[in-house]
């Protein structure tokens, strides 16, 4: 479906695909194929970097991660460098790059240097398959969802390397925790995404956006439970606060980052935001309809809609980070295996049955709205029922202490005074 307002002219900046296509076609006439090919990838990367990653890093890095959290914590946040403190990440980068990167004498130096590099690579690679707009994807491969899942599990190895190589006990704790957490949360994550795949019948991210465009509904309404599971699992994989047991600054000083300093630390820190952004972009593509917005994309550039959705989702990360305490390691594992995984299986059963019924009806458009309604109600009921099954009893936790008038000895529970 071609937006009627977007022209095919290269200067129409609402569709950046035009621009790159013009450049590539011009280059194709004079240059050999290999050069054009490299040029295409470079344009994709540079365009996405300039358009999306860099401003997002600046805006999210400052405004999301620090100013909004500062607002939540009733303080100001960075506001000195540049207008409204917008240039703070650049100042941080300059500071970090000239700091000394300490490496303990007893640490494994080589592994310690390699770990941040391995950590950063997947963060860049993840952007290859996320469609920013129509035709605006660096590598439009048909198995992009699997690619995303595969690449996004790589940083765990880097963090384990970082924790193990430092020869520090706190780092060791962090490394051990992140490995166990990663293997626990991978299964529910994949299971949740399987629900979306069953519904759309494709594992290409562009295909998913096309599906949302075709049926005029976002996956989040059809698969609310999948989004919840995805969000929790991705928070765990990314070490975001409610589940950041690998860093856990109040318990194991800084976890696997304890021995890192200078730019090596900066890479870990900066790419944390990069990963969270990539995960938000992925969620926006799969669950929130990507660059489409019920026809609005004909008036507004698609990549702007995509960025807005990504940042909306990223706000969820910030919000949980600013609000929630941290779970303990064993509780976290129990939560993954006993709560999220069964819910994921339930979700899969429901969605596959619906999909079969739907295909019987020849993919009638109206039926999907019925499914959405049913699924939303079912998800709430399922979550509540499964929580009760797992021992969720809020009424048994009194949140106010007992009050007594007279000092004296021990007063057993249940005895009034």
């Amino acid at each position, binding site marked *: 479906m071609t937006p009627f307002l977007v022209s095919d002219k290269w200067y129409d900046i609402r569709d950046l695909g035009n621009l790159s296509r013009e450049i590539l076609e011009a280059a194709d006439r004079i240059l050999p194929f290999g050069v054009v090919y490299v040029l295409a990838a470079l344009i994709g990367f540079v365009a996405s970097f300039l358009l999306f990653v860099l401003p997002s890093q600046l805006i999210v890095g400052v405004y999301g991660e620090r100013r909004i959290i500062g607002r939540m914590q009733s303080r100001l946040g960075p506001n000195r460098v540049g207008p409204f403190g917008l240039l703070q990440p650049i100042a941080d980068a300059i500071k970090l790059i000239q700091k000394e990167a300490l490496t303990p*004498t*007893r640490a494994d130096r080589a592994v310690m240097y390699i770990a941040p590099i391995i950590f950063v690579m997947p963060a860049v690679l993840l952007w290859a398959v996320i469609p920013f707009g129509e035709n605006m994807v660096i590598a439009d491969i048909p198995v992009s969802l699997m690619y995303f899942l595969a690449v996004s599990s790589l940083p765990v190895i880097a963090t384990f390397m970082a924790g193990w190589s430092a020869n520090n006990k706190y780092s060791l704790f962090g490394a051990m925790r992140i490995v166990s957490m990663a293997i626990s949360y991978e299964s529910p994550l994949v299971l949740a995404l399987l629900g979306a795949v069953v519904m759309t019948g494709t594992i290409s991210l562009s295909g998913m956006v096309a599906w949302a465009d075709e049926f005029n509904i976002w996956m989040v309404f059809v698969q609310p439970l999948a989004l919840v599971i995805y969000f929790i699992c991705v928070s765990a994989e990314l070490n975001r606060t409610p589940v950041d047991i690998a860093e856990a600054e109040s318990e194991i000083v800084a976890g696997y980052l304890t021995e890192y300093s200078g730019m090596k630390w900066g890479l870990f820190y900066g790419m944390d935001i990069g990963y969270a952004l990539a995960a938000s972009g992925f969620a926006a593509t799969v669950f929130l309809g990507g660059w489409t917005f019920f026809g609005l994309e004909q008036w507004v550039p698609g990549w702007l809609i995509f960025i807005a959705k990504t940042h909306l989702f990223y706000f969820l990360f910030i919000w949980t980070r600013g609000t929630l305490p941290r779970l303990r390691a064993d509780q976290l594992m129990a939560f993954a295996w006993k709560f999220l995984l069964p819910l994921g299986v339930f979700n899969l059963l429901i969605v596959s049955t619906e999909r079969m019924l739907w295909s019987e009806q020849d993919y009638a458009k109206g039926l999907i709205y019925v499914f959405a309604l049913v699924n939303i109600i079912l998800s709430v009921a399922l979550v509540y029922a499964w929580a009760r099954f797992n021992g969720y009893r809020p009424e048994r936790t009194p949140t106010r202490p007992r009050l007594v008038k007279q*000092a*004296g*000895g*021990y007063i057993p529970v249940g005895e009034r005074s």
Partner: protein
Amino acid sequence: MTRELTGSEAAALAEALVPGSVDRTTETACYLKPDRLVETLRALRDDPDANLVHLTNLCGVDYWDHFEVVYHIQSFEKNHLACFKVEAWGRENPEVPSVTPVFHGAWMQECEAYDLFGIRFAGHPNLYRILLWEGYPGWPLRKDFLAMPGGLQPGLGEFAGVAPRQEPPVKVIE
């Protein structure tokens, strides 16, 4: 209002439970015999009438010729506070029995009294210098601390008898 038991009232409570445990009484405190101390306090803790369950305060006092260890013990249900004392004679190695088997809360307070006064508590499971370091010369809260051999002398700058700082056992990889 908490009733602070006078020495004779506390002595009466103690005598009733463990005869022969009281040494003497004053207006505010009741002096117990060191060898009957643990037994008496245990009896006072378990007896419902005395009900002295909460060892509120334990501290040592230096009276030049002898040391006193003061126990303030509180009852929750009867709401009275009794003050018991034990004397330890001799400056070289004063010793009183530890009440840690009776009151777990005495554990740290006895460590502190040992650390600052040098009063040994016999039967304490782990008596160590809790605030100062092991090997600190002298007992700071004794009245003659500054005059003690090896104590802090003006102009010395560092405590005598402290082992010189050693290089860390780390080898530098060049």
